[in-house]
């Protein structure tokens, strides 16, 4: 990990803010897209895949731009991604007992 000085330098560079309002417009459009997608006359699993893909993009936009992950270093990414990976792993390891079992 690099030092605080380097970090301070980063701050002092008056980093170029992304257009927060622009991101918000995207978020709202994606929200509408998600709601519309849920009404699509498709296979249920396809609809579910679609709306969660849209949700993931929304969450990614918030995390990257509003939470500033885009401008962070690796350690902060790890703090966000390792728990996500653990949750996915937990979900998959629970599947055999609750979804694939036969009563």
């Amino acid at each position, binding site marked *: 990990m690099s030092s605080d000085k380097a970090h301070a330098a980063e701050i002092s560079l008056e980093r170029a803010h992304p257009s927060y309002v622009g991101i918000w417009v995207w978020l709202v459009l994606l929200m509408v897209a998600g709601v519309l997608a849920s009404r699509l006359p498709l296979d249920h699993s396809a609809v579910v895949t679609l709306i969660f893909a849209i949700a993931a993009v929304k969450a990614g936009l918030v995390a990257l731009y509003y939470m500033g992950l885009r401008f962070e270093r690796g350690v902060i990414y790890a703090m966000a991604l390792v728990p996500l990976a653990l949750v996915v792993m937990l979900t998959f390891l629970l599947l055999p*007992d609750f979804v694939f079992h036969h009563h």
Partner: protein
Amino acid sequence: MTVSVQEVPGVGSEEPVHQEPTGFWRRYIFSVDHKMIGRQYLLLSAAMALVGGFLAYGLRWQLAFPDTWVPGLGFIGPETYNVLITMHGTTMVFFVAMPMLLGGFGNFLIPLMIGARDMAFPRLNMLSFWTIFTGSLVLLASYVVPGGAAAGGWTGYAPLSARPIYTGVNWGLNLWLLAHAIEFASFLMGGVNFLTTAMTMRAPGMTFFRLPLIVWQELTAAVVFLLSVGPLIAGAVMLLMDRIAGTSFFVPAGGGDPLLWQHLFWFFGHPEVYVVLLPAAGLACEVLPVFCRKPLFGYRWIVYSTFAAGILSFIVWAHHMFVSGMDPRLAMPFSITTILISVPFAIMVFAMIATLWGGSIRFATPMLFALGFLAMFICGGLTGIFNGSAPANIPLHGTYFIVAHFHYTLLSGVFFGGFAGLYFWFPKMFGRMLNERLGKVHFWLTLIAFNATFFPMHFLGLAGMVRRISNPLQYPSLEPLQAVNVFITLSAIGLILAQVPFAFNIVRSLRAGEPAPANPWEATTLEWSTASPPPHDNWGETAPAVYRWAYEYSSPDAGEDWLPQDRLLALKP
């Protein structure tokens, strides 16, 4: 090796974080000083250990002399017995082991060892202590509410714990859940503080691979805790909803599933074992090189093993559930990961043994306890091989073999690792030396009584004595073994009494102990370069800078057999 001044990146603690308080309340009660908070944690842990020890005495008496008058407790019926075992487990794991090994040693040692003046968030640190203090009060309060305290086992398996009707306990179990929630909140604050402090406030020159091992192990424990406790918090909320809002998350009659609770519990429960164990191993790792006058063998390998153990701890949890009715196809994968976890711990143990080789070993009390930890931990680790193999686990699950195993791992960590740390850093914490003779008496009595208590439990477990029964005489097959139960109980009482010399030693030393010099053990880590006890801002005018790793003993570069981390040697021509 050439010792030279190195230009190393470091963060540095540029400003004293807070002024030294003068009033009694600010100084001793609502202190933001990590050293005071660490000592507060140790005191809380000792107080709760008295409670937990008393519960152990009660339940052991009942097992040896079923349904007789227990001196100090009265008659213990089966309901009370279930309260005793539940509260004994909960108290010891969450309110003794964690406050002692993480709250106590972590708080006291991390800032001192990395050369900081305090924690990153001193007020959050104070809040974390008073949070767990509140949690302890809630736990104690649960004894006196109508219906009594929780009686669902420390694992709180649903549906037994999900409906008051099954145990007859109503508010006691709700408060038990609440006490957990508060305790978790406290250690979340503590964990965030530990990690932020170590990541951002290391002294100049204190690179990550110059950190003393205990710091690594506290940090690994903190990460493991932060990332494993979430699902259990979610589970605890769901269980509380089941109890008070009429939901059925874990009750099949309403569409729930009891196995879900077990998965959420053990997803945390197994990492929790390492949350306790790693700091205990870390304490022993600090003590061994000092009294061998020799570098810790394979420092980096121990660090990597610590990471490996921490990572593996997230994918072993279902070994607690081999016979729970979970999908049998999951058993072998979890069995393999479980048995694999013996590899990093084997590396740690071998490294500790290799540290002894070629040393110049002094048998001071901290060293005796560290060696005791090593020996007991080897026993506990080896019996873990039995439990970790799914088929071998079938006859052993839920018997006293398991009880023996986890006392050899967890209690050995608290007793032997914890006491090694306490005897070692007591002079730094309180500025007084402890009496060596009393310390040695304490060690030998504890070692003998510990083994006399827990070793025979292996035999009882193999013979089929199941856990959590209040009267072995109800089982014809156990009647001939009752003498073993009596022996265990007497040994357990002996183990409790063996702590009297320790208590006496502490009181005596605090009142009239010999004043401790800054570095009584001639140790190398940073905390020994400041006064005993350290001043309020830890370092006085100038904070230390670090020039080498933590275990430079008997270096050919120095005349003395120890080179502190912050001592600058003149450059060789």
